[in-house]
């Protein structure tokens, strides 16, 4: 059998498996979606050709709104620059076609590439900014693009705009109906891709970064990179919509792509619901409805339609805020679900025994120091974390325990000192350390509240995936699908280990202690060798403490090296093999429980009348 036949055979098998998976996952809602697409594709049969341009234009704009939904909904990036990206795509296309005489396809590709580059540059520039500043910066970008275009009427075409030649493909003119079908296909693909991405690896990583960036970083999520990627993708979709939209309109003029359009798209996304793939389309349809209503009322009452439209949109936004701020579609979905309460039955349980830690190694810290201005938070700190041991780090408030943990996991760069695991020196940010198996949990409760319990754990389980990039995920390649199964298995195993048996429950519904267990499960799903826990027993009842202690025993027995920062000395007594005591950033004692308890310095500085052993 030749290699080609072999490849064909494997492809056939994989396609059959994909088909089986698709059939298994097919639901009545998928049928509805398919029917809706077919019905939309049949619209040209009932709508006169003269109306198709308006409809196609709307769908291109909706495509840009869905693109914005990627940034706003998936990653929580409040971009007010989508109109600018539409304009960049449109004017690149228009300039290449009208001034340089390029044919359609090459100009489209260049327009998309230029917008993608603009998206990457803007994403890099705004990546480290807080949400409010991202909104302001992207809003300024919208103004800059508008001002640039209006300042050079020779480029932008002035009052007449930049007029494009007729759009032809293989000698045939592309009619508005043709544009509509292209736009419909593109928006269906964009929505489908969003629906596929959101609950899987890349979408979960973005949601984690959106809900709690520090916790996501701690689980090895490349937050900055994934946010940059989704922002660039959002801009690229806008560029595509802009370029095709200008081909439909046959004229590009700057006033069509200003800050007002950016704001309108943003409002559409918020109005419809940023977290649902169809939300932006619904939002834009509602705004479009407002516009038509304003025109009707304006025509009837002799009022300026523009002002009425703004007023109606304002009322719409107030309505959304009144419904909880999530948007019309999520509000409708919540209402529907409240009428038909779903029964969560999960048979997805895994073994409760933790797997043995592979390549268990000791983590060594030597001479770690960290200053914040004149405050010495950590001063020459040494630590040995041995596999199969629980090491407690205790000390009074402000003694530098959390600083030590954050330095060990890479959240803080030490001023001096080294951290290593086996032969590997740990330097730089969190993600490489997490990949080497050094994982920490946050002091405060830090779950990804908008995700389910399982999805929280899947964020951790996604760390070691090799085939979970956005393209493989969207196209559901065999390797990606296989990895999905493995990751889910790991996540369920971690959840089962910590005693969380309802994977589909929203994380926000868990009690405070359960949320801390979920943090632990997410960390365990990364397959750590060294686990650093910051106050895992906070808020736990006596029974929960016992259960947590049992869990730490199990983890120790599996070969994990554990560091526990804890104020609850009873819990420390129960779980710790060794104890290190910090005072004003300095280690004042280290050893077994008995040794530390007998240390006079520890009694004076920390224990007082409390007993450690």
């Amino acid at each position, binding site marked *: 059998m030749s290699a080609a036949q072999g490849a064909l055979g494997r492809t056939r098998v994989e396609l059959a498996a994909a088909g089986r998976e698709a059939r298994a996952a097919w639901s009545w809602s998928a049928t509805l979606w398919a029917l809706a697409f077919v019905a939309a594709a049949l619209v040209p*049969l009932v709508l006169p050709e003269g109306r198709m341009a308006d409809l196609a234009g709307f769908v291109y704009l909706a495509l840009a709104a869905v693109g914005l939904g990627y940034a706003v909904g998936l990653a929580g990036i409040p971009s007010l620059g989508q109109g600018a990206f539409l304009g960049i795509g449109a004017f690149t296309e228009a300039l290449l076609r009208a001034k340089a005489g390029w044919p359609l396809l090459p100009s489209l590709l260049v327009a998309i590439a230029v917008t993608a580059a603009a998206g990457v540059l803007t994403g890099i520039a705004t990546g480290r900014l807080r949400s409010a500043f991202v909104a302001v910066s992207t809003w300024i970008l919208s103004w800059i693009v508008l001002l640039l275009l209006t300042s050079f009427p020779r480029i932008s075409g002035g009052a007449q*705009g930049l007029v494009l030649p007729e759009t032809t493909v293989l000698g045939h003119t592309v009619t508005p109906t043709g544009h509509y079908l292209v736009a419909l296909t593109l928006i269906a693909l964009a929505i489908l891709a969003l629906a596929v991405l959101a609950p899987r690896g890349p979408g979960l990583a973005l949601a984690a970064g959106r809900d709690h960036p520090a916790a996501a970083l701690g689980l090895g999520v490349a937050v900055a990179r994934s946010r940059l990627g989704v922002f660039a993708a959002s801009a690229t979709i806008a560029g595509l919509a802009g370029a095709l939209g200008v081909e439909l309109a046959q004229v590009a003029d700057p006033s069509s792509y200003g800050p007002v359009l950016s704001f309108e798209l943003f409002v559409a996304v918020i109005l419809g619901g940023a977290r649902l793939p169809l939300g932006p389309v619904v939002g834009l349809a509602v705004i479009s409805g407002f516009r038509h209503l304003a025109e009707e009322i304006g025509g009837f009452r002799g009022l300026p*339609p523009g002002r009425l439209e703004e007023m109606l949109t304002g009322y719409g936004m107030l309505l959304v805020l009144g419904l909880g701020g999530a948007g019309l579609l999520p509000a409708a979905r919540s209402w529907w679900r409240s009428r038909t309460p779903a029964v969560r039955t999960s048979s997805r349980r895994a073994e409760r025994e933790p797997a043995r830690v592979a390549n268990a190694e000791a983590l060594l810290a030597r001479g770690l120091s960290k200053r914040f201005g004149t405050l010495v938070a950590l001063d020459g700190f040494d630590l040995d974390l041995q596999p199969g041991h629980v090491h407690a780090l205790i000390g009074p408030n402000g003694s530098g325990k959390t600083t030590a943990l954050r330095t060990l996991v890479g959240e803080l760069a030490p001023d001096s000192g080294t951290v290593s695991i086996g032969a590997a020196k740990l330097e730089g940010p969190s993600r490489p350390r997490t990949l080497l198996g050094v994982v920490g949990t946050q002091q405060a409760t830090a779950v990804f509240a908008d995700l389910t319990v399982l999805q929280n754990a899947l964020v951790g389980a996604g760390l070691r995936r090799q085939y979970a990039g956005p393209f493989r995920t969207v196209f559901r390649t065999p390797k990606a699908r296989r990895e999905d199964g493995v990751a889910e298995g790991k996540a369920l195993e971690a959840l089962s280990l910590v005693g969380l048996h309802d994977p589909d429950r929203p994380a926000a519904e868990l009690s405070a202690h359960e949320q801390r267990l979920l943090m632990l499960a997410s960390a365990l799903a990364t397959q750590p060798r060294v686990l650093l826990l910051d106050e895992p027993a906070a808020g736990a009842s006596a029974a929960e403490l016992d259960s947590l202690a049992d869990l730490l025993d199990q983890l120790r027995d599996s070969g994990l090296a554990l560091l526990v920062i804890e104020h609850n000395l009873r819990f420390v007594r129960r779980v710790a093999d060794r104890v290190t005591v910090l005072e004003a950033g300095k280690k004042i004692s280290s050893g077994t429980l008995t040794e530390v308890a007998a240390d006079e310095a520890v009694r004076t500085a920390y224990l007082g009348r409390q007993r450690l052993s």
Partner: protein
Amino acid sequence: MIRLVLVLAALAAVASGCGGNGGSDKEKTLTIAVNAPFSKTPYVGETIADGAELAASSAVIEAKGTKYRFRIKRYDTGLSARTAVANVRRAIADGAIAIVDEGTGVDASWRLARDADVPLAVTYQGGEGLIDPIKRPNVFRVAPTDHGMAFRLAEYLIPKKLKVALITDDSSYGQEGKKALDESFGQNPESVAMRLTVPEGAPDLAPQVLRARRAGATALLVWAQPTTIAGVISAARSSGWNVPVYTPPTGEDPLVRQQLAHKPDWVDGLTFASGRPTAEVGAGPFLTFQKRLEDRFGVQPVGVKTPDGADVVQPPDYAMYSYDFVNVLVAAIQQAGGTDKQKVLDALDQVTVAGANGDQRGFNERNHEGVVDDDVYFAKFEGMTYAPVKDDPLSRTLVPIEQRR
């Protein structure tokens, strides 16, 4: 699925019965679209629409046994070329027999109108290249051209031995004017003190006006939006510079006077170029037209008063262009014997009507300009009203239009 197809088929049947023009076989109402910036520059938009509506409302013709009436449908361009083009698409879909257009976006929209054999008439913008009877046989203009106004301005100002500062703003209107002015003053560079582009809507133009003064300008020619014109006058007069100011028709926009209402004397002396509202036959036809327009839509108050306290109204000079085009169109339909679009287009090159100002309006195969360059006159403001100047051969023959109420 079968049910879905049946429903869609039923919808298609219903939809096919919609659209087009209303009326029975013996009486039809034809739609004329007015595509203008109603929201951005309401004065221009309303002026165009009112003129077209006045003509449409009184036009009833009969051809081959069918009585035709006309109605106007307004489309707001918001001064956006893209919206203007989309509006033309909509108008065609709405079954418009013709489009009366302010001019924005015509470079793109004319093709759509041509493909539907729909005539498109520009009734405000004067940009060069909009009209080309060979390449754009369906595009007509009834408005003074930028080229004509710029040359008339040059012809008027150069003999005065003035050193003119040519000020344009960065609006599309200003940039179109800049092109026309560069061309018209190109042969007489000694008359130009400097060329200056200022930002549209800038709150303070004092620095730019000071530059013009320092460059030795003895006159300002401001081709810009009304707010920019008001800004330039304000900057000049507040610095004590009583320089003469010349403008294209945007100088007569009520907005200029409204913005300078607190200093009425600053408007005095402002001279603008525009298409003449009266012709050799005197003011009679225009006054009749004005009365009919006012009877139907009311007077258009400027919102300022004369020094003796009378309200000032705006003469409907630009409304007469859309009015005239609709009358030419009606005559063309009459001559074509119906609404066969190609026949109507052909007839538009053949018919002539008496315009609102008494001039003959019409087009031919080689000329789709309804206003000849020689029809550009000059008027000067005094006491918030304007009158034709006396130092121009054409203008001094024209009768002032009463603007006090």
